[in-house]
């Protein structure tokens, strides 16, 4: 540990520190505990969403697995997510390399433009996409959903990969070139291994963005192309179906997995 933050001295008085620690634990509990409530509900044996659940059962998990509505939504979510991730990761990585290594005018402006999807309220881009896709006949199609989700995920790839690249010594690739390496060979053997953790983290963020995205999916899906979040939103809104708790538990597990993977990658990248 290199340095300690200045605030440490403020709380050198043990009472102040105790108070701050107590307050912080409460905030952490507020962040974390509500997420946990969904797990017992997902495995409840009760007929309704009562807490505490009367007993343990996998009835809702079974219901979800055997419902064609849910399974097709899961399939849609995965295929759209993977396709959008491939697109955004490929284009985003290329753009990040061009931005960090290139020496052309307006790089910072272009970087800002690529982050714009994060800034524009999703409802606004969803409405615009709906109006445009209605004209182009892309509503309720795989292609339409993939394009929209790739747009939403790309900023994460651009951010993470360019952050990885700025920390990486460019003289390495110059050395490869001076040793006579072919540009593609230099990229494959020098650049790619270094930026790989960043690319994978970006891809992970991009996939989760698509997998969890509700608003654009709600606007563009129509009745033919519903993803898991769309089905969940409609389920919560209209009937409060208890099997949603089971789906929620599943999504929570996916998030946990994604987070742990990203965290491990980040540590590896640091070494």
């Amino acid at each position, binding site marked *: 540990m290199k340095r300690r933050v200045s605030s440490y001295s403020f709380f050198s008085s043990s009472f102040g520190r105790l108070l701050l620690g107590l307050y912080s634990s409460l905030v952490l509990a507020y962040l974390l505990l509500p997420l946990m409530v969904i797990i017992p509900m997902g495995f409840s044996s009760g007929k309704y969403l009562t807490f505490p659940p009367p007993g343990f059962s996998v009835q809702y998990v079974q219901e979800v697995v055997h419902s064609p509505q849910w399974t097709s939504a899961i399939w849609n979510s995965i295929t759209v997510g993977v396709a959008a991730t491939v697109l955004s990761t490929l284009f985003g990585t290329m753009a990040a390399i061009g931005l960090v290594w290139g020496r052309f005018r307006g790089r910072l402006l272009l970087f800002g433009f690529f982050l714009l999807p994060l800034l524009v*309220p999703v409802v606004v881009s969803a409405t615009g996409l*709906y109006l445009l896709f209605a004209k182009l006949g892309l509503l309720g199609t795989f292609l339409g959903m993939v394009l929209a989700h790739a747009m939403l995920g790309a900023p994460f790839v651009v951010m993470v990969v360019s952050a990885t690249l700025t920390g990486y010594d460019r003289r390495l690739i110059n050395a490869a070139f001076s040793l006579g390496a072919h540009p593609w060979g230099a990229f494959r053997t020098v650049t790619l291994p270094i930026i790989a953790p960043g690319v994978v983290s970006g891809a992970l963020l991009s996939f989760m963005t698509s997998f969890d995205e509700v608003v654009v999916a709600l606007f563009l899906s129509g009745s033919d192309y519903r993803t898991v979040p769309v089905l969940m939103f409609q389920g919560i809104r209209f009937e409060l179906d208890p099997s949603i708790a089971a789906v929620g538990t599943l999504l929570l597990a996916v*998030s946990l997995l994604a987070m742990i993977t990203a965290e491990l990658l980040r540590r590896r990248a640091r070494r």
Partner: protein
Amino acid sequence: MSQSSSRSLFLLTVPLLVTTVLTLLAPIVFLFRTALYAPEVSRGLPRFVAALEADTAAVPREEVFRVLAEDLGRRKETFEHGIVIKPIRHQDLELWKMLKGILRVLPEDPSIAEISSWQRWFSEHDSRWESANTWRRLRRVIQPVTDFYLLEAMDLKRDGENALVWQEKEKQLFLGVLLNTLEIGGVVTLLCLLLGYPLSLYLASLSSRTARILFLFVLLPFWTSLLVRTYSWILLLQREGVVNGMLAALGLVSEPLPLMHNRFAVYVTMTHVLLPFMILPLFVVLRNIPSPLTTAAASLGASPWRSFLTVTLPMSVPGIAAGSLLVFSIALGFYITPALVGGSEDTMLSQLIALNVNSLLNWGRAGALGVILLGTVMVLFLSVTFVLLSRMRWNPLAGELR
């Protein structure tokens, strides 16, 4: 690498540039277009619109009535009349009803119908067709380029003399929703700051190993689906929910408390969802304050509280600004959470947009509300970012302070 290859690296950004232009910029341009441009009437009833524009009288002559009947008849034949007069329905409901009335009684093919005076036929059917007021309003709603939707979205309209006036009291809705949206965003930002700042301070003061483990608790909600988090709060707060169940079991309440579908639920849930966005920038900034500064302050005799107020707090202002900006601008666009846990009093701008896109099919209004939401967020974001960037001279691409 040579100068030229450094420049040609621009080509690598082209695919993403094209994709982003197609899927973000083009839709936004389309949104503006929809908000300002409703060509259906002038396209669907072209001869009538041309004839009316050529006629400057308060109540036009026979010719205009005749082409109106003929144009309407032609659209009715192809069942397009509903689409063609839809903008009129959104802009002037009374006028739309008058046109619907005409469409109902219109003879099969008006151009060969034996009617000597269409003007008389119109006024016999509905005497309002004789009034100059009707025609003044009709002249306005046939314009393809209109500021009607943008004005409506700000509770404004044009009166008979084309001057801007407030909408009637009972029709005023949009400014209230905009204020609601800003208020919810402001309160949530404040709550995030109140909860997030002390936690970030604490996390920043821990050893990096402990901080990293505790930080996972902040990151897990960040990675978890928005719907899962909102749904968890529904399970907690609903009438038969966890909180009410526990309160009843402890004998603290006899009646379940109304915790859902109100402002309280919106604040609690939105703060929960947005808190990580406040903590991340705050933590980074607080962690990077050089400790010699506070040590120096302490060695010069400053009390811990004073050293916090004079060193740590001012130095963390960029983190406070970045976190607040992030939370506030994301909060302004919230749709899912207020739709699921809020009541009718807590409607936010995004919900109104979604309602107009998906249920009311009033795209002009949805577009105008979208333009207003986007404008608010952009102005806010760009001005704060500009101040931050120019004061800190920070270049994210160089990865260093210039």
